[in-house]
């Protein structure tokens, strides 16, 4: 499972992506728990971050499979 970081989340993690190898699909809750183990600084962003897979925002109850590409989207500021 590849996790993509953007904008200020790159600063918080020091990288633009990370590879996780969960043994079973993860809920959003479990995904966050796993990420915070590696990147405690993400905690400050959690409440404002939306999650996307396959280039679409997902609902809070989404489940992420081992071969998903998951993007963490901080508040956007385009235009």
């Amino acid at each position: 499972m590849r996790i993509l970081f953007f904008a200020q989340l790159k600063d918080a993690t020091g990288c633009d992506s990370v590879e996780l190898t969960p043994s079973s699909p993860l809920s959003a809750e479990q995904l966050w728990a796993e990420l915070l183990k590696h990147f405690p600084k993400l905690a400050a962003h959690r409440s404002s971050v939306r999650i996307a897979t396959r280039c679409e925002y997902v609902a809070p109850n989404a489940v992420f499979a081992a071969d998903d590409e998951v993007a963490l989207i901080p508040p956007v500021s385009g235009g």
Partner: protein
Amino acid sequence: MKLICMEIEIQLVHEPVADPIPPPPWGIVGAWLEFRGMVRSEENGGNISALEYEAYPEMAVREIRRILESLATKYPCRAVKVIHRVGVIPVGETAIYVGVASPHRGEAIALLAGFMDRLKQDVPIWKRRALPVETEPRKNRAPVATKTPLISLDEALAEIHSQAQPLPAVRTPLARAFGRVLRETVGAPTDLPDGDRSTRDGYAMRADDNSEIFLVVDTLHAADWKPRQLQPGEAVRVATGAALPCENLRVVMQEHVERDGQKIRITRHEPARNVRLRGEDVKAGQPLVPAGGRLEAGRLALLASAGCAQPLVSPRLRVVHFTTGDEIVPPDQTPRPGQIRDSNSILIHGLLQKFPGDVVPAHLPEDFAAAKQLVSTFHLQPSTFDLLLISGGASVGDKDFTRPLLEWLGFEIVFSQVNVRPGRPLIFGITGGVSVLASRLVGSLAPPDQVRMAFGLPGNPLSHFVCFHLFVAAALAKLTGAAPEKFQRGRLAAKLDDAPCPRETLWPAHRDPAGLHPLAWASSGDVTCLMETNALIRVPANRGSIVAGAEVEYLSTD
């Protein structure tokens, strides 16, 4: 479900958004509404020079399309074109362009408004950071007098320094960054080296282990990464450069051991540890390549090793170079009496090599009206060039039209005579960009405060050489964000023989380990001394001859 038949075109681009964008190809549709979101000169109360945008491109394009398709069901339009620029966008340039075609304006306006609102909520594009304005604000000058006085070299340099402003920085792949000026300090992403490494082919064991005989428990090649704790009596075979399996090890050269199967015996003891320690070269986060330096091969290699594949650097310079004078013929032609070959074009071309960019050359006819006619075909919008150089015609002869030409182009003449030889009739002009030049020519809107500079260089080749190194190079250094070349101190290797001159002199010289050798030059038309010149000695006004061995100021030209 309503059928959507709106054409949608979406681009994410790194380059400037064209101006203007051609309207849709299918003729009259009723309304063609265009919107440009521009980068403002202020962000969070501070002045900025540019904003850097980041995008999640695949998802951004998809989100934009999703939003437009959803809005089209409510506001049926004929077509929409969206261009969002990412990367470093200078103040005054377009960040987003939206064009909407529809039968009536109402739908187009509603769709545009709805789109921009939702773009700012949902499309994964970010203003990553603001790049600050890098220099002191330009000083306010008094209105320019019709006749500018003769000014000193130092006054001229101070004027250029205060008028020139660094151009907005850009991100560029390493392969295209050679010769550019790095515009932000790049730090080490990790400790360098990132772990303890062997400096010898040999055997690694605990530094505190004084055994004579060791069991070889592993072999490590240069690319291996096999962490393990070594126990007393254990050693690993290591290659030069290999990452050691843990900290607090030493390496014994292979020449100093006897090997027997899996065992080694140390035959010679030496105090050296033969280990490069983690962070020995530089610690994570410490500056590796400071801002302001020109990127030569070695610095590029250092950036590559730090993972900085797209450094923030000065942009490629865009220089327009006009030569003037009907006496000039190309180098491959034989001049008739009264004519000379054009050496200034290639001189300027060569001198500009140090500053990566593009030179647009042209020769102007001696007739002012014809020259203006030709210049107007260049469409010299302020946004299309950074520096204008005009060779020749800088004096006040009947046909010397450099000054009127610059004024016609909207330049304000800052000075036109500097008290130096060679190179006294040097013209320096600036334009604020927006007003006169734009209205005179094509009517484009330049970013405010984007100053364009022009130099009118005296036509003699030696004057050209001197004026370039003294003045043009100083302006180019400031534009690129580099430190200007400074006068250095050196000793004369031979006497400088000169009568006292009321002007400061920049005397061509050859510098070698023995010191500065003044070269013979008869007049500013003399090109022969350019064979050897690699320095210009600064001779104060009224100084006259200077004895061998005396300390002088000079400017390096190589």
